[in-house]
């Protein structure tokens, strides 16, 4: 190995002799020295900003009024401490008929004046503040005595006294305030976050921008010449005449190039670590782990630069190729994100409902469909006339809650999910009803109860809405038009319409959002709110009451499936648990796919089989009769977005966006396929964008790893699973990009080795 160590050592020597390195280190030193005087102080809040005086004019008027009135008052105390000039201005203003401009000037001066006042120990007078209700903190400080508290505590106390005396006119302050300073000069105003967050923000910004972007870019520019120089005529002849392997020569030169970045990154990050420790008292050893991460980030780009360098033996071509590669990676990631989030994913089926001889489905964009057997395609239902024409190319509606099917009246019902990835859905709780006899056209029904977490149809064809506060039953005809009144041109539903859903249970003390399941055979309901799992049974009058209840305190949201003697609970943290239906005794627990969120759980009517879908679109099957995990591999098991059971242990599985396959359990034999043709965008995504994205490295995604190292929070992404745990925030896969990038480096370096071995120099 001696020759290869010599090459690496030579790279170090080259780096150390490089003027560019010295220049970079000098620039880095200047930057670090520029950063060092930044100070972050966290103090008890007191300082007034202009925005803190929410009603400046009213406040000054009130103080003047109190000053004029007999008897002690906070206004008198404040007035006494105002500067003479300010008092004169106030008096002059009150004498003017039009206080417009001078009043504005006074309002601008007021914060400064109050900042002077809060530093004075004579502000507080017990008689003046008698009758003013003080908070616990103010009382505590007063108990210690105004003369014995520190200057910082005094400012905070005086601020609290003023806030209490003039509620509504002075904004309530946070307990502490964070201030930034530079070279001892404190910047105006406090920051809305704590000291730790500020330090973390400064460090993260510096590391991400100066090391991750500028540092990597400069390193690429500087190291671009290493390979071309090594493989230039005259130099390579000399090297290849030595008893060394060509591939190892290339690899060690590549490693040597990375050493350059190591020196730079180590210098910057160790410098930053020292500043964060010495100046801010934040000794974050995790920061030091950013050195290998940035070396890794650089080594991705350098793999491309080195490959181009050995092929073209030109530093400029190396830089251009690396820039193109960066553009390609970024562009590909962006394209995939746009196409999938705005076009492809909204088309994905997230709910399936067997409806007699037809199949009904709903996609992520809140649109419902029925299967048209003759045309072999999905036809949209529950749509109002002309609605399609109004839809934009990118459908960003929230998913539907439901649909549920009422076999007796042959109608399907749904509401818009109350939460979408963009937040709460406005006006989304109107019931949407479609009847077979009316070709499933949308009829707007009554409003569902606020906070509805699940919809079910009971054996008597009544619609049940499950909320965290209770279960509601729709008694009247749901197709009856909702009454509305028009107020200033805006249609407002009448509140009493919601009353058609009647409370059909005792008050539940659960927390939304709930996971719920309903067994139509027994009329029993199961609900889980992250802490409590309960079953509810209805009496003869249809009133639900808790039957069994168990505190699980899992602190995770979950979905529930119930049939036969089994209740299955799927959690956001990836756990799947089963319980005895009677008594809620725990049976088994699995974690089939690590921490991947369970997105939906369904049970066959006879309670024999349970199907669980995960957010990463994998399927897991459980045989409750045998109490064992089923080893059935339906096609599309890797891309499952919706599941449902039909009579006779038939499992319906939606995959590949809009395809549905019906399997016979337990064998897993395919009974039917509902396979529409896919659109051009979906096909482009499936056969071009996705494969390219899979093959290409994802250097941009290393950001998550860096952020996770720099902060204590686990990095997460908002993801819309197929069903149940909508908009669940799930842990981000921070190591996935590391492996894909490492694979890319291996391939790129391997290509470089292969080229070097084959080439006649």
């Amino acid at each position, binding site marked *: 190995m*001696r*020759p290869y*160590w*010599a*090459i690496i*050592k*030579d790279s170090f*020597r*080259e780096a150390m*002799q*490089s003027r560019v390195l010295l220049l970079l280190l000098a620039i880095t030193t200047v930057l670090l020295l520029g950063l060092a005087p930044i100070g972050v102080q966290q103090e008890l809040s007191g300082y007034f900003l202009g925005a803190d005086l929410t009603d400046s004019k009213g406040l000054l008027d009130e103080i003047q009024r109190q000053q004029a009135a007999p008897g002690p008052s906070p206004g008198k105390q404040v007035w006494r401490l105002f500067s003479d000039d300010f008092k004169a201005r106030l008096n002059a203003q009150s004498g003017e008929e039009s206080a417009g401009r001078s009043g504005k000037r006074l309002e601008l001066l007021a914060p400064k004046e109050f900042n002077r006042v809060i530093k004075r120990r004579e502000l507080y007078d017990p008689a003046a503040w008698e009758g003013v209700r003080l908070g616990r903190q103010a009382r505590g400080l007063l108990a210690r005595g105004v003369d014995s508290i520190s200057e910082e505590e005094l400012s905070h106390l005086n601020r609290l006294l003023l806030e209490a005396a003039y509620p509504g006119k002075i904004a309530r302050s946070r307990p502490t305030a964070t201030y930034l300073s530079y070279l001892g000069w404190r910047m105006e105003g406090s920051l809305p976050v704590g000291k730790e967050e500020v330090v973390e923000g400064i460090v993260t910004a510096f590391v991400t921008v100066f090391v991750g972007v500028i540092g990597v870019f400069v390193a690429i520019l500087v190291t671009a010449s290493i390979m071309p*120089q090594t493989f*230039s*005529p*005259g*130099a*390579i*002849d*000399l*090297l*290849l*005449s*030595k*008893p*060394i*392997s060509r591939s190892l020569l290339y690899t060690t030169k590549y490693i040597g190039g990375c050493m350059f970045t190591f020196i730079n990154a180590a210098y910057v990050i160790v410098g930053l670590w020292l500043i964060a420790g010495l100046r801010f008292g934040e000794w974050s050893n995790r920061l030091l782990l950013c050195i290998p991460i940035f070396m890794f980030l650089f080594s991705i780009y350098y793999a491309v630069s080195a490959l181009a360098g050995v092929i073209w033996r030109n530093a400029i071509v190396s830089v251009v190729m690396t820039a193109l590669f960066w553009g390609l990676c970024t562009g590909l990631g962006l394209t995939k994100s746009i196409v999938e989030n705005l076009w492809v994913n909204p088309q994905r089926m997230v709910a399936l409902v067997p409806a007699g001889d037809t199949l009904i489905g709903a996609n992520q964009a809140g649109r419902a469909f029925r299967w048209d057997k003759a045309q072999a395609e999905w036809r949209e239902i529950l749509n109002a006339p002309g609605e399609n024409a109004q839809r934009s190319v990118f459908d960003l509606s929230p998913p539907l809650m439901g649909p549920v099917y009422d076999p007796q009246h042959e109608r399907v019902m749904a509401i818009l999910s109350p939460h979408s990835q963009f937040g709460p859905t406005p006006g989304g709780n109107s019931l949407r009803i479609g009847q077979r006899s009316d070709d499933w056209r949308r009829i707007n029904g009554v409003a569902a109860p606020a906070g509805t977490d699940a919809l079910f149809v009971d054996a008597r064809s009544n619609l049940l809405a499950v909320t965290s506060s209770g279960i509601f039953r729709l008694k009247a005809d749901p197709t009856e038009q909702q009454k509305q009144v028009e107020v200033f041109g805006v249609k407002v539903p009448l509140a009493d319409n919601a009353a058609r859903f009647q409370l059909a249970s005792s008050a539940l003390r659960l927390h939304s959002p709930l996971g719920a399941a309903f067994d139509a055979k027994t009329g029993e309901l199961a609900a889980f709110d992250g802490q409590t799992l309960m079953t509810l049974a209805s009496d003869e009058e249809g009133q639900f009451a808790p039957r069994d209840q168990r505190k699980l305190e899992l602190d995770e949201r979950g979905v529930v499936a119930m049939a036969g003697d089994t209740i299955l609970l799927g959690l956001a943290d990836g756990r799947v648990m089963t319980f005895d239906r009677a008594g809620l005794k725990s049976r088994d627990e699995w974690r089939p796919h690590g921490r991947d969120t369970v997105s939906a759980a369904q049970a066959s009517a006879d309670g024999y089989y349970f199907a669980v879908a995960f957010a990463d679109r994998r399927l897991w099957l459980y045989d409750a009769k045998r109490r064992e995990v089923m080893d059935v591999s339906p096609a599309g098991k890797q891309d499952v977005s919706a599941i449902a059971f039909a009579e006779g242990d038939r499992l319906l599985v939606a995959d590949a966006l809009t395809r549905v396959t019906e399997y016979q359990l337990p064998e897993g034999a395919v009974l039917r396929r509902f396979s529409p043709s896919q659109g051009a965008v979906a096909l482009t995504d499936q056969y071009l964008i996705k494969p390219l994205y899979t093959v290409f490295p994802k250097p941009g995604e290393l950001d998550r790893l860096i952020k996770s190292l720099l902060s204590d929070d686990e990095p997460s992404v908002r993801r819309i699973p197929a069903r149940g745990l909508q908009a669940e925030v799930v842990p981000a896969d921070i190591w996935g990009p590391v492996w894909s990038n490492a694979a890319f480096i291996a391939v790129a370096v391997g290509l470089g080795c292969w080229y070097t071995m084959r080439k*006649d*120099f």
Partner: protein
Amino acid sequence: MASDDSAIDIQGLRKVYREGLFGRSVSALRGVSFHVNRGEIFGLLGPNGAGKTTLIKVLLGIVRKSAGEARLLGRPAGDRRGRRQVGYLPESHRIPAHHTGNTALEYYGALSGLSSSQIRRRRPELLRTVGLAEWGRAPVKSFSKGMLQRLGLAQALMHDPEMLILDEPTDGVDPVGRKEMRTLLQRLKAEGKTIFINSHLLQEIELVCDRVVILVRGEVQRAGAIQELTARPETEVSWTLAGAEAQIRGALGDLPVRSWSAVGGDQFQVVASLPDQAAIDRCIDALREHSVSIVCMTRHRQTLEDAFLGIVQAQETTP
């Protein structure tokens, strides 16, 4: 003849380069065969584009052969164990600018597998040998071309190789340096090392090489000892003779005179071709018998350059 003791043994060696987008083929070597004995200094001669550098690169494995056989020190050309015993000085070599004389030798010595202590032991001696004793700490970017060439030779000798392959070793070296290099090569030969030199400086080759091969357009035109290549069937002799013209012509009799010219007064410049030494002796006797004074006599010998140019020109006139 080739034997197991051959330092280099090449049989029917061919190399075809593919160039351009459409892979146009260019034959650099067309069935080259020769061998180099161990312990001799061997010269590789040829005009530009003859395939000399390609041949060396094939021997070192820098370029892969297309066909034929090439063995270096008993191993297939390019074999790493074979390269371990070879020191190579490429034409127009480039030593990275961040090196000093010392670090360059340390780097290339380590690439040849030497330990740090071996490098430290050998480096001063070698720098002295190539005349760079005072330049060990100087950066190579301050070196002249001749100094770089000396340093290149030092790196080739660093691991005390069994064989040296030198491509234009005296390129840029001053006359004093050339003489020193000749002395060094003779010393290395005396130590039993094989030296394979490619050079355009035919006088240098003639002075140091035992045998040469002449390549033209990728083919061997001549191979053999220097004396064999420079040997001629007749000897050319030129005289400056003093005497009457008739007297001189009478003395020379029917001798084949190639040129006759008067050089002033009663002196004449005469050039004649004679088959051997006996004929020269007879001619001198005849001149003296006719009382012709021999002012000056020069015997001409064919140089390697004459032989080389003769071969190359003959080849170039061949279609």
